[in-house]
């Protein structure tokens, strides 16, 4: 069966001021229908670029220099503009980080939801859609302009608009990063329950590993423009196999026992200008060996996950 989303060895470069920065360095990911996938990585790990590439939304400075993104078998980068718009309209939904900024400031919210329903929506439909994202007073919200809403309300509106077409894939790029901590859980709850109802596959891009592992069936960890570990959420969180994932888990405050020291990861994430010769994490890796910085690591499938690490097999059962 064709997977819903198949990202194959994707390479994306950004041209910035005469030099090239490599954002994705051979990222690979396959997602089946109905999965809830959390993609975790620091700023600069390439997760936002990956999310944009799925809908062909890369900015003008970016170019795909290798690999392919296939949504249900269709290569996104070879689609004609009209087909690409049809893909975005019919199969994809996006939620962005900045809730109020994602809404047109000069148009009433109800009208924007109506446009997202593509003219099929009556006023009652608009109200119903706004009620589905748990807005307390949908009629008042429909009459408001975006600047009259709180961040949480605006993000619910954005969710209603993204889910209006019942997309097959919902890509949520740090949807709660700009929100107060109290309402994050509520907004995430709305996203996940609506997606479950519509049978929508979720790709949630985040830097918060434990939050992602709590809600998603699968966790994907990105580093240096590649997917370095991908597997069942509980397995990855409980016994990470990639040294970077392990370091992320150790750096989470909640995971450390009282009195134990939180460990940070020494060094800086890399800024690639071309294909990395070895493992991008090797310079910061506590376990790095000779081949780590010389050869690109192979993809190894162990213990319910795929790991991109020279040491993955060696450390099986090492109790990391």
């Amino acid at each position, binding site marked *: 069966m064709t997977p819903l989303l198949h990202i194959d060895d994707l390479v994306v470069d950004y041209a910035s001021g005469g030099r090239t920065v490599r954002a994705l360095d051979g990222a690979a990911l396959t997602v089946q229908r109905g999965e809830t996938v959390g993609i975790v990585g620091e700023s600069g790990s390439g997760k936002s670029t990956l999310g944009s590439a799925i809908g062909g*939304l890369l900015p003008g400075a970016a170019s795909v220099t290798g690999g392919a993104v296939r949504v249900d078998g269709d290569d996104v980068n070879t689609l004609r503009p009209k087909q690409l*718009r049809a893909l975005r309209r019919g199969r994809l939904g996006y939620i962005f980080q*900045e809730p109020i900024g994602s809404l047109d*400031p*000069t148009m009433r919210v109800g009208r924007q939801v109506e*446009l997202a329903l593509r003219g099929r929506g009556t006023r009652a439909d608009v109200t119903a859609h706004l009620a589905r994202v748990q807005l307390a007073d949908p009629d008042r919200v429909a009459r408001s302009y975006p600047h009259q809403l709180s961040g949480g309300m605006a993000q619910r509106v954005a969710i209603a608009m993204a889910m209006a077409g019942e997309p097959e894939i919902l890509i949520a790029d740090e949807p709660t990063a700009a929100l107060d901590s109290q309402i994050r859980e509520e907004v995430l709850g709305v996203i996940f329950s609506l997606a479950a109802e519509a049978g929508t596959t979720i790709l949630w891009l985040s830097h918060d590993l434990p939050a992602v592992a709590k809600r998603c069936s699968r966790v994907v960890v990105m580093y240096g423009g590649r997917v370095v570990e991908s597997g069942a959420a509980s397995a990855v969180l409980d016994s990470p196999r990639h040294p970077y994932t392990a370091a992320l888990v150790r750096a989470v405050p909640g995971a450390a026992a009282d009195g134990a020291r939180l460990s940070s990861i020494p060094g800086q994430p890399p800024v690639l200008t071309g294909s990395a010769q070895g493992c991008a994490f090797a310079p910061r890796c506590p376990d790095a060996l000779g081949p780590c910085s010389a050869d690109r690591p192979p993809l190894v499938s162990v213990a319910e996950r795929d790991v991109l690490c020279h040491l993955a097999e060696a450390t099986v059962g090492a109790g990391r």
Partner: protein
Amino acid sequence: MRLFSWWLRRALSAVLTLFLVSVLIFAASRWMPGGFAEVVLGPFASPEQKAEVAAKYGLDESVFVQYWLWLGTALTGDFGISMISGEPVTTEFGLRLPVTAQLALFGVAAAVLIGVPLGVLTAVRAGGRRGGAALGRLVSGLGVSVPEFVLGSIVVFLFSRYALGLTVGGYVPFGQDPAGNLQSMVLPAAVLSVFVIAVAARTTRDAVLNVLVEPYITASIARGESPGFIVARHVLRNASIPVITVLSTITAYLLGGAVIIEYLFNLPGIGTYLVQAVGRRDYAVVQAGVLLAAVVFIVLNMLTDAAAGVLDPRFGAAAKGRKR
């Protein structure tokens, strides 16, 4: 109610501005070296002759008394007489206003109908490889950087040799001879248009480019909306405020008289008339002219603010004094 009090405050500040402008221009014109008597009588007149002329027009009174007398009659709508022609100032302006208004109308129409669409087009095509962007930049760059008198002189030179049915100078009022009027107005309007089109196109292009990078545009692309739909529904309105502001400035500037164009094409408009009036120390004309320009500017500013409030609800909220 809040809206009303906002307009009331604007009106009061407008009146205050006009008052200050009138004081300033009165003082400035009286303090200019060389008064009306010197200008009329020439450099060799005797002090007695000068005193006689000054007394005839009340220029021997103190500046304060003069201002007080002027203010009193101006408030009744009487702006005095031109000391040069002896005609009422309102009559003099009535003769010249149609010329300036017609030129301004052509200029603003060119800015709106050609400049704005050109700006939108070059902004939307900015990422394209078809060279449309480079062409747009070239046109607006040339239009902004070539001085009016250079292009105007070239046009006057060319068309005084090869008429092509158009005339340089020889203005006739539209009411008298519509065809002749248009013949004489096409060239000055065209030269003027090059500049206002360039300014309008450049402002529009920048405004549209600023909107195109907004996250709500990315969001609408992500929803699969087509480029035409996005420009029509999301871009135009959000980019409109700087464009309207610059259009209003262009209108105010043109209604004040495009002096260089009027000189070059020998058009009897407000601009040349005011410059002449300053040279001749025709005080009543200068005062009325500057005040008229100030009124135009204030009214256009208020209209622009009102339009901004309608176009962008965030401005509307501020204008109505509503706290967010």
